[in-house]
């Protein structure tokens, strides 16, 4: 691993570095078992720790329970509060209920594809965690192309959603599938262009190295790349179909989108792993933009994995918050936002970052210059966000404060309807 000093000792009880425990286990297995056992078990420990001990409980208690409670509060209702103390057992009850429900396959449905779709959807959700570093030694596979790996893996659930929508033999399913893919590919472009800005700064695609870079320079990339961060957040929430952008399963338009014909555990896997992907996106965002497991030196004392878990949940909280606050957008607004607004901004951001980085390198400026860049980039991001909206014709004063008559505007315009979007 890297040469940066790290206080954690090598005793197995030092919880600051969980790789110690896994090393002890592996050494034991090496002594008692055949050669290949330790080799196979070593990644398994990582996946079990990351997925079964962190993701699944978070999915259940933060994703299913916490999210519903919080959104309930935001919308002035209670949320689940019946099962167990404060309704804490609700996710367990839900899981038991889902397992017991019949998974109906409608007539004329493509049975094979319908049953494979959840498999294709869920398996990548485990794989995503292979490259997320939980600490200096705590990453399952620190591949040099971790960032691209994440992007490649997250292309698969989109296909799974399309398979699900196609196979149901239902027009609403098909519409939902088309929408989900169209949305995902539209936002993917801006997302990748935004992440390119990060790669330009750090000159690496390994997530561990990106965290180390932020640690070395004592700055998080969210300050250096505010625009990329905002683009990442919006794109991720669009690709995850979370509520301000969940037109793929908009109940008021197309029943339940691509999941219309799904029921029982088949549906439960989609629902559960949606939360799993949201957590993965949050963990990835925290790693790339929020310093990952580092916290300005505090990671020497607090377990780094705890820092990452906390950041992931904070990030996820913002997802919940936007979901509870913002109304659903229309599909044309979302498409316009992706192609006309975020894509040009991401491209400009990319060129600006390249120029900055080149200047930093050529002029031999010290590392302190990053703070100047941070200030400049935040200002630039604000300017671009406001300016490009103006260029596209968004005028704040044109927003009606009260409903106007239909005959004046050629349709009903709700108060505040023209905010955002930027057509």
């Amino acid at each position, binding site marked *: 691993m890297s040469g940066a000093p790290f206080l954690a000792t090598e005793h197995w009880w030092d919880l600051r570095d969980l790789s110690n425990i896994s090393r002890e286990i592996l050494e034991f297995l090496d002594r008692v078992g055949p050669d290949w056992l330790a080799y196979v078990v070593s990644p398994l420990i990582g996946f079990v720790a990351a997925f079964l001990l962190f993701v699944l409980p978070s999915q259940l208690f933060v994703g299913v329970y916490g999210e519903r409670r919080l959104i309930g509060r935001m919308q002035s209702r209670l949320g689940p509060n019946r099962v167990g103390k404060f309704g804490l057992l609700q996710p367990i009850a839900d899981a038991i209920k889902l*397992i017991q429900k019949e998974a109906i396959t409608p007539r004329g449905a493509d049975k094979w594809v319908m049953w494979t779709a959840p498999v294709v959807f869920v398996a990548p959700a485990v794989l995503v965690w292979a490259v997320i570093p939980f600490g200096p030694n705590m990453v399952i596979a*620190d591949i040099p192309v971790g960032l691209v790996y994440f992007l490649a893996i997250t292309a698969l659930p989109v296909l799974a959603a399309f398979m699900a929508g196609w196979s149901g033999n239902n027009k609403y399913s098909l519409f939902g599938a088309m929408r989900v893919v169209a949305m995902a590919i539209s936002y993917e472009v801006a997302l990748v262009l935004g992440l390119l800005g990060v790669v330009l700064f750090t000159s690496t695609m390994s997530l561990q190295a990106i965290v180390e870079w932020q640690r070395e320079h004592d700055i998080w990339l969210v300050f250096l790349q505010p625009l990329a961060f905002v683009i990442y957040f919006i794109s991720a929430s669009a690709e995850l179909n979370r509520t301000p952008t969940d037109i793929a399963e908009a109940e008021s338009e197309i029943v339940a989108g691509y999941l219309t014909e799904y029921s029982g555990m088949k549906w439960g896997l989609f629902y559960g792993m949606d939360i799993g992907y949201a957590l993965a996106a949050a963990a990835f965002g925290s790693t790339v933009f929020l310093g990952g497991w580092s916290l300005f030196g505090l990671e020497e004392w607090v377990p780094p994995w705890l820092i990452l878990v906390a950041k992931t949940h904070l990030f996820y909280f913002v997802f919940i918050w936007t979901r509870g606050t913002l109304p659903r957008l229309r599909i044309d607004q979302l498409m316009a936002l992706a192609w006309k607004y975020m894509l040009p901004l991401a491209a400009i951001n990319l060129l600006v970052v390249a120029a900055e980085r080149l200047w930093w390198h050529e002029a031999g400026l010290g590392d302190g210059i990053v703070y100047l860049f941070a200030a400049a980039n935040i200002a630039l991001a604000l300017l671009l966000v406001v300016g490009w909206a103006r260029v596209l014709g968004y005028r704040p004063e044109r927003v009606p404060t009260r409903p106007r008559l239909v005959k004046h505007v050629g349709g009903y315009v709700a108060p505040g309807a023209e905010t955002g979007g930027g057509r």
Partner: protein
Amino acid sequence: MSFYDQWAAILIGTVVGFLLVFSALVGAKLLAPYARERAKGVSYECGMLPLGRNWTQVHVRYYLIAILFLLFDVETVFIFPWAVTFLGLPEFVLYQIIIFIVILGLGLVYAWRRGVLEWR
């Protein structure tokens, strides 16, 4: 860990993922009830019998969006190697990349002007 070891770890993760989802699906299959009922197989349409055929031809704009996406997806994948290494490269490479982005940007502008990005 060597190159192959890391990818072997990811391969093992794939196996774990598949086992996980298979166990969930098989468990549900074993535990879930099953009732024979003709009306159950009818595809859902707000409680009515489905109108028309379930196959609908979709609008061509989806295809255009997909082509536009392909254009920019390939572009970004090409830019990644440059982004990692551009500090050590001669100056003309930067201009090459700018030309590259501008050519693709022209594509976007053309699509924009022809109204491909309008969603109606």
